[in-house]
């Protein structure tokens, strides 16, 4: 295999990995602050994608916007509506069930995901059909030997990496991040030291969901097509990546996301005929890794909470 092709496959893997990582980080954040699994997370990705499509269509219908402004309105809509969806799910479903068995939250958010999904399918005109997503990023291809990559792909990848990095800095370097980490370590003590528990929890939900919604917008820009049930498999992949990387940690889910994408890409490179089984093989790898590292590759500092 020549270097160009290798670089191309590496880029493909990175692209998928950054999308998985953005979704996985949300799972980890929610688990960190509240010890809950929020299963509607994948559908928030879809909500983000459809919000930006709607905003771009609506804005474009009113005034002829240059692509930059259309893109900005699309991203703003995705992030705002995504964050809002996260806050509503957190406030209405997750916080009241905080003291109930964990499986209740899991079930409630699973149902919320179905509601979101079906609302898109039934509420959007012809919502059951795949929707073409406008190409808002500049076209053009960067070529170097047998390596060729779209300018838009590079921009999407850079945006994804920057956001993941930004989230990491937010958690580790800011007062809000400190509050999140305090709540994650011990909610009671955090409250005693004057941290507004509910604001921090809902802020975390907004942050994680906005990331997922942005990932949805990126998916639309990258594949130029979105559909109402795209979030289902992405949610499961994100969850699996978070678990294998280490639920509750920040770096773990990112590693998990890249790992999952790496296995998927490797399967296709190694044996074309096994292409249909790439998800099967990737999930099997996850199962094996979980068996070897039960608390994830990067375990939470204190996996036992009393």
């Amino acid at each position, binding site marked *: 295999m020549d270097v160009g092709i290798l670089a*191309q496959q590496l880029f493909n893997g990175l692209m998928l990995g950054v999308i998985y990582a953005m979704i996985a980080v949300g799972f980890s954040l929610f688990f960190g602050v509240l010890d809950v699994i929020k299963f509607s997370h994948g559908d928030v990705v879809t909500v983000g994608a459809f919000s930006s499509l709607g905003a771009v269509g609506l804005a474009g219908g009113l005034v002829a916007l240059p692509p930059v402004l259309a893109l900005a309105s699309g991203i703003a809509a995705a992030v705002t509506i995504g964050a809002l969806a996260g806050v509503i799910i957190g406030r209405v479903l997750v916080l009241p069930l905080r003291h109930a068995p964990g499986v209740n939250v899991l079930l409630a958010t699973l149902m919320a995901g179905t509601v979101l999904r079906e609302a898109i399918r039934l509420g959007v005109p012809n919502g059951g059909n795949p929707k*073409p997503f406008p190409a808002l990023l500049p076209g053009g291809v960067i070529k170097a030997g047998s390596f060729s990559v779209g300018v838009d792909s590079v921009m999407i990848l850079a945006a994804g990496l920057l956001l993941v990095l930004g989230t990491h800095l937010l958690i580790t370097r800011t007062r809000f991040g400190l509050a999140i980490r305090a709540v994650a370590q011990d909610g009671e003590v955090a409250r005693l030291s004057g941290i507004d528990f509910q604001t921090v929890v809902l802020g975390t939900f907004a942050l994680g969901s906005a990331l997922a919604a942005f990932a949805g917008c990126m998916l639309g820009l990258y594949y130029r097509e979105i559909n109402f049930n795209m979030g289902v498999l992405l949610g499961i992949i994100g969850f699996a990546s978070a678990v294998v990387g280490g639920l509750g940690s920040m770096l773990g889910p990112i590693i998990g996301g890249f790992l999952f994408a790496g296995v998927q890409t490797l399967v*296709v490179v190694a044996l074309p005929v096994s292409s249909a089984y790439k998800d099967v093989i990737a999930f099997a790898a996850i199962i094996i890794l979980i068996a070897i590292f039960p608390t994830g590759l990067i375990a939470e500092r204190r996996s036992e909470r009393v």
Partner: protein
Amino acid sequence: MNPKSSLLLLLSGTLALAAPFPSAVLAKDTVKLAFIGPLSGGNSAPGLGGRNSAQLAVQLRNADPAAKYSYELVTFDDECKPNVGIQVATKAASDNSIIAGITHYCSAVGIATVDTYSRFGLPVVVWGAILPEITYGNDYREIHRVNGTMINEGKLAADFLTKQGYKKFVVVHDTTDYGKGQNKYFTEYLKPTGGEIVATFPVSPDQQDFTAELTRIKELKPDLILIGGLTPLGVRLRAQMDRVGVAAQLAGVSGIMTAGFLEGAGSAGEGTISFHNGAPISKYPQGQAFLEAYAKAGFREDPDAYGPFAYSATNLVMDAIEKTGPDRKKMKEVLNVTKGYKALVGEINFDDHRQNIVNANVYVAQDGKWVYWPDSDYAAGKKKLARN
């Protein structure tokens, strides 16, 4: 009185009231026909085109004073999913007021439902699914088909593409019965022509990311990529080919020859080759009349590639009912031995497996339309297909 018996009383009362009226008031008895196809989801464009065409056949027949019966089309959505298909097939077949069905565009659904129709004795005419096994894989006398199979398509694809000078092929097919069948027949017929398949990629029909597959394909440098799948797969592959920089010519089976592919792929779709077992509507003697009637009926969607087959199937079924009356068994006997029936899509002749004998044709995407190959700028040499 217990609730059960009161319900019974109510039911019998309703029946007694309702029963005498239809025949007394209406001049003609109403005969129900089922139309089943994908009306939602990624393959809804051909489904809706088929439904409209079948609806048009019924409307025209109902406007004809010479018709003995008045017809009603009951439509069902199979969503192109085998499990949903079996559900609606059972619903239609177990409804005794439905005399016959015009069924299925998706092969995976078409093959899943044949047992159901046979078990309930509902005669059906398949209008779009092209998997050979639907007619050739069983001996159910309920199953008929007006469109051709992928055997004709696969043979034509292999012959035509090698004649165009393409030698190294890559096949990307979905893992349903449809995609696997397309792969099987194309591979089989390519051997004698001397063409070579350098790699085959079976993929899940709802897979979204093909960059890994396409990068591998780029490395293999084939002359042509053949898609054995439906529109969503075709659109995704076409869009991502440019991203990865794959320059090979693209060809697809009739599953991608839809308006949806051209819309989804946009300008990148230009020059894509496809194979279909129908000729263009305008080539048929009654084609122009069909298009005018279709436009006049005011449908929102195009008839799409298989609409004329749905139209022909509906007329075939109604003509059989006109002869025998609304009786599933009797009309099936008439339908079974159809020979030399003049339909919109040409003469319909059923063989011993009730399969119509048709020839496949080549099409090419040109300026946002599927153009009959002999009429295209590509055949005339004005435009060139991609050479790697």
